[in-house]
């Protein structure tokens, strides 16, 4: 079975632009979570979606939004990009709502210039 996939792998944007990151969970997994990992730090929780509904949101501004589609794939959108948004964005899926055993994708490396 394929693992969690994310696209694109790398992305370069300039300040003020908008970005959309995509994630496909493991087949059969209904929960998708998004994390931001700044260099040298651990992943920080942004969103969790379960059965297409937002079930949790971390301490991130409204410039960050996400959605989950009927096939359980997900998009993370970030508007009005700032230099500080440069990070590795990780998507994780789990079969159920419980997050104890999540499966992470390889991430999307976003660089904001």
């Amino acid at each position, binding site marked *: 079975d394929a693992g969690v996939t994310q696209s694109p792998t790398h992305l370069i944007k300039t300040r003020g632009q908008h970005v959309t990151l995509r994630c496909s969970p493991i087949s059969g997994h209904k929960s998708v*979570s998004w994390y931001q990992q700044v260099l040298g730090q651990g992943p920080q929780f942004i969103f969790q979606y379960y059965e297409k509904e937002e079930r*949790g949101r971390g301490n991130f501004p409204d410039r960050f939004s996400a959605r989950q589609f009927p096939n359980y794939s997900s998009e993370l959108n970030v508007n009005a990009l700032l230099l500080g948004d440069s990070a590795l964005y990780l998507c994780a899926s789990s079969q159920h709502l419980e*997050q104890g*055993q999540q499966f992470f994708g390889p*991430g999307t490396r976003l660089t904001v210039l």
Partner: protein
Amino acid sequence: LAKTTQPISMDSYEGQEVNITCSHNNIATNDYITWYQQFPSQGPRFIIQGYKTKVTNEVASLFIPADRKSSTLSLPRVSLSDTAVYYCLVGLPDDYKLSFGAGTTVTVRA
């Protein structure tokens, strides 16, 4: 969320056992302890999860004392490929706001 404290880094040699202790003095009654491993430029990988006493799988063992205020991840006979960052997380199984701390960077040398 229970706050966790781990050593910033640890060095070891191939074939040795590595033990990483995580302190979580404010752990709640229903909290579980979960460990993840992360290699550079990759997403974290689930290692092990436990509630009390000892849990063992093919990769590691997790030791949790009776008071549950700390836990120890044990990696037996490490190899160079075990060089990674190891994260300890504490929370409810359905706590969907778990964020990772800085983790412990384990460096295994030949």
